[in-house]
């Protein structure tokens, strides 16, 4: 079997693709790469379609040994990349000989690197996706040392970029938000706080949500919210008032009110923001919200 042996799994390396859709009504989270643009770019560099599965690392990188020669590419969080200890390019196709060790080192900027192999990671799909969903346990388990991960047949030629891709942004994380669906459950003061408050990324975040520290958001409506469907990017406010931005493995329904929703393009930088990063929310308008309020 064409595949790669896991030499060093890292703290949390998972198989990711574009996620599972169409099963949220059964309680199945979407899942998929947290930094979807980086996942797509890694696939493009390796000559794969966007839906091919990649490896998503977390902070500490990963080391693998391909059984056959393979073209690979690393994107997302920038990190030193080596083949048998010799530095090779990040953000470009790399030819790895059979039996050589390809290592993605600790993340320098960002948290999550994406490692694509020509042919894609070819674990058996579950409900149409190969992704690991850490909330519900669907898909393959996170990588362990000495695992062998199957690869598919290569698709097309590797692509080259004119220059190196942009890495994860540094400095302040600015997240646009569309207010609602439950902004009316919060005090007017808290709605102002959301748009002006200085928040920081908490170390307690994971693939389920980006947890934030900062001024707590107070509710105007007390009592329990009957469980309702949750969207990707929902800013849910639990009883302690500290907002959580839902990422790919978020639960499909929840009982805490959602004060606002972060648009999908802003979630990739959110997933790369290290603990301690300053966060600011910027409320924006949405046609759907304007129309829903009139309707």
């Amino acid at each position, binding site marked *: 079997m064409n595949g790669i042996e896991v030499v060093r799994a890292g703290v949390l390396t998972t198989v990711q693709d574009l996620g599972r859709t169409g099963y949220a009504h059964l*309680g199945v989270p979407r899942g998929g790469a947290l930094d979807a643009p980086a996942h797509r770019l890694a696939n493009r560099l390796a000559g794969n379609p966007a839906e091919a599965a990649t490896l998503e690392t977390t902070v500490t990188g990963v080391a693998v040994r391909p059984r056959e020669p393979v073209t690979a590419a690393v994107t997302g969080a920038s990190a030193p990349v080596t083949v048998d200890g010799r530095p090779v390019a990040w953000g470009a196709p790399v030819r790895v000989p059979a039996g050589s060790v390809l290592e993605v080192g600790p993340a320098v900027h960002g948290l999550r690197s994406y490692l694509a192999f020509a042919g894609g990671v070819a674990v058996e799909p579950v409900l149409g996706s190969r992704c690991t969903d850490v909330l519900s346990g669907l898909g393959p388990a996170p990588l362990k040392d000495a695992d062998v991960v199957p690869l598919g047949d290569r698709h097309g030629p590797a692509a080259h970029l004119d220059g190196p891709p942009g890495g994860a942004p540094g400095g302040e994380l600015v997240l646009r938000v569309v207010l609602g669906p439950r902004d009316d459950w919060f005090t007017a003061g808290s709605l102002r706080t959301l748009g002006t408050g200085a928040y920081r990324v908490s170390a307690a975040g994971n693939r389920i949500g980006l947890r934030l520290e900062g001024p707590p958001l107070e509710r105007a409506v007390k009592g329990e919210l009957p469980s309702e*469907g949750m969207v990707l990017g929902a800013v849910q406010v639990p009883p302690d008032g500290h907002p959580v931005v839902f990422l790919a493995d978020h639960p499909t329904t929840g009982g805490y009110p959602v004060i606002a929703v972060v648009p999908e393009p802003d979630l990739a930088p959110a997933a790369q923001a290290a603990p301690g990063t300053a966060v600011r929310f910027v409320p924006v308008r949405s046609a759907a919200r304007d129309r829903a309020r009139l309707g």
Partner: protein
Amino acid sequence: MNGPGRAHALHPGSATVRAAGSHALLVELESGEHAEAFHAEVLRRRDAGELPGVREIVPGARTVLLDGLDDPAALAGELPSWEVPRLEAGSGPLVEVPVRYDGADLAEVAALWGVAEEEVGRVHSGVEHHVAFCGFAPGFAYLTGLRAQYHMPRRSTPRTAVPAGSVALAGPYTGVYPRSSPGGWQLIGTTRSTLWDPDREPAALLSPGTRVRFVMEDG
């Protein structure tokens, strides 16, 4: 009450439409019953090709989320004028779930209900339940059907591990744990039915709209 169609319609204007970001609408109804009827109408319109493209349709206790819409603003304007027929009793597929009423919280539930322990199973299996919505875990269904006098508070301290197949109560709902997980519901029994199997079609034994009859099994 003028005509058969209208006689069964829920009164119009009962849907409140809330935007959830730029590509989703959360439609809030007045009650769980209205939400289930609205959900059925959404599915009917989707199957009839009358609904614009939507990625996920997620019912909740009193809501239906329509996610992955290209033009939610247009649909938001249209939804409140929908005429939503009342759900006919006995619609939806029927699934039987065998249960041994031997749960760890049986005594506590019996005390709260004011019945003998062996009565709990008879009360619970004596009514038809149906799936209002799913969530919490793949294949975990929130079933309604018990009368208000049998509604049940959650445990004050959740268990760190509830075994797979546990039949449990919380609030107005019955749930069956598809796999072992932490949980705060009151355990009344266990089933040998497989609630969730991603290799099976359909993966979930219980999906929104399914009617469920719990069948009491001996010890």
